[in-house]
């Protein structure tokens, strides 16, 4: 198995923990001072990231689906194309990416870059991929 395949397996375990609400599991992937620049939050530190996701998962079902993986373990980098599906269990009108109402389903595709050091994410940055309507992505 190539080192990139090993990295992919490691990353897929992160997604499984995230999708399963395993906060200890996916939280272990963040460095103490991780820089998180996501679509709905820009925060620093594992504790703050997990607090943010506790708030998210209290209100929404969020599922991440890996579409494309580019891994370069030798330089501590990976990039992914990720589909995020949100289903609101309650209204969240203050959601920074736009209000969402109970029962509403929202999907987005994002390109996410991860910096990795000592087996943990030190920086996570997400950019929305937004092809115009009708374009086959």
């Amino acid at each position, binding site marked *: 198995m*190539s080192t*990139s395949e090993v990295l992919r397996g490691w990353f897929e375990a992160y997604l499984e923990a995230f999708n399963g609400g395993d906060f200890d599991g996916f939280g272990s992937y963040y460095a103490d001072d991780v820089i998180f*620049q996501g679509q709905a939050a820009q925060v620093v530190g594992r504790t703050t990231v997990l607090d943010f996701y506790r708030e998210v998962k209290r209100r929404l079902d969020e599922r991440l689906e890996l579409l*494309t*993986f*580019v*891994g*370069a373990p030798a*330089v501590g*980098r990976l*990039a992914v*194309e990720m589909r995020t599906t949100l289903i609101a269990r309650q209204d969240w009108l203050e959601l920074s990416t736009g209000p969402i109402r109970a029962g509403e389903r929202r999907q987005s595709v*994002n*390109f*996410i*870059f991860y910096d990795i050091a000592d087996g943990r994410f030190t920086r996570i*940055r*997400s*950019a*929305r*991929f*937004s*092809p*115009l309507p009708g*374009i086959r*992505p």
Partner: protein
Amino acid sequence: MTPEQRFADYMAAFNRGDEAALRHYYADDVRLVIGNGRELLGPKAIIDFYRGVKAKTQRTIEIVQCFTDGEWLAAELESEFLAIADAPDFASGPMRRGDRLYINSFVLYESRDDRYARIRAAVFKREWRRAQSP
């Protein structure tokens, strides 16, 4: 030549506007989705589009980082557009002469037979720096 070196050569050709060289980097059926969501199909469409961009703006793309694991290459790019003429139809929004636009983007390149067949860009950061009014 590593894929990363090849990518750097491609970006150098792009920056100097070397249209003849650029054609060799694209598959005949290349699809490019730029940061604002517009799709360009085929080498000619890409080259024609960026010829138009260069007519109205100065721009150099810097490779912040790039890495690959075979089929795909991921790149983080930075560029600043300087409008050298009014560009009311500029892809990211209207620009007046002297305006600057900084873009930091994440781009995924899928290769086939050593040519880029699918290129998709997502804007991570966009900052307008408008020229001062006279």
